[in-house]
């Protein structure tokens, strides 16, 4: 055990840390696929799964947007509006960034 401790305390410790982080991250990355391959897909589960992508997006962006005040909300709204009108993701992105820059420049 002290051998392990000595190795971790050596300059190799950083490599051990990176390997440990890599391992747990990879487990997180594969866990969803492994888990769902053991779940029987009933209509109810399917409805839940269908709601997941949009739920992940909203759960990710809403707190970030609200933390940054109304200019952020307007910028997200502009990105959504242009994306809905054109279906071109680069234009939606540009509209959001442009709107936010302009509002911040004027404030």
């Amino acid at each position: 055990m002290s051998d392990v401790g000595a190795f971790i305390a050596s300059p190799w410790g950083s490599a051990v840390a990176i390997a440990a982080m890599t391992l747990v991250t990879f487990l997180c990355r594969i866990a969803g696929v492994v888990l769902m391959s053991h779940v029987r897909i009933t209509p109810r589960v399917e409805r839940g799964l269908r709601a997941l992508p949009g739920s992940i997006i909203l759960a990710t962006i809403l707190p970030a947007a609200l933390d940054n005040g109304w200019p952020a909300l307007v910028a997200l709204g502009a990105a959504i509006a242009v994306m809905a009108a054109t279906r071109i993701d680069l234009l939606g992105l540009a509209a959001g960034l442009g709107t936010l820059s302009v509002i911040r420049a004027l404030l």
Partner: protein
Amino acid sequence: MSSSPRPFFSLAGLRHGARASLPAFPGFIMFALAFGTAAAQKGLSLAEAMGLSLFVYAGASQMVGLEVWQKVWTPTTILTIMMVTAVVNSRMILLGATLQPWLRHEPIARNALNLFLITEAGWLIGTRYHTEGGRDVGVLLGAAITLWIVWQIATILGFFAGALVPEPRAFGLDLVMPIFFSAMLVPLWKGVRPALPWLVAGAVSFVTHALVPGYGYIVAGALAGVIAGMLIE
């Protein structure tokens, strides 16, 4: 669901995915530049910073990892950084769960590579393609490989030239990821009713974010959305 075409894999899909990943470049470049800069400031070697970007390849956990990074490691500090990483990256479990029906028939080695490279941005691009009826797994992998390469280049640039990067706020780039995410919400729109769980997800996420520190709000909100989806007929 049973009427949808069978998943397959093609090189043309790889190219398609590489092209489709372009809108995610600004966010990736900004985040990896910031990580490279922070890693250099914290005193990490280039090998350490690149090791994190090459293998862990998960921005939020790389940043949080820097906060608990050590000059001399002990088994306890290794365990700490592992725990912190697991907490921050647990949201990736959800990404995999949505991809499972698409990846079900893939060879295991290619699935391992595809999932090793999965990020929210690559997942968004793949999910949009899948929602619009595409089934070529190559698209997911093509976007993933391209974004991984962008991440490495931007990490190196940030490590050596981070001080030269202009203030991102002036161009709205500090919010480039939420803006990209919101644009990618549009192709998922199938009407008001299927979007009701999204509102539940957003509300639960917001409340969790206000009450609990850390990144748990994403998982809490997304799971609330799934439960709402299961309950709403």
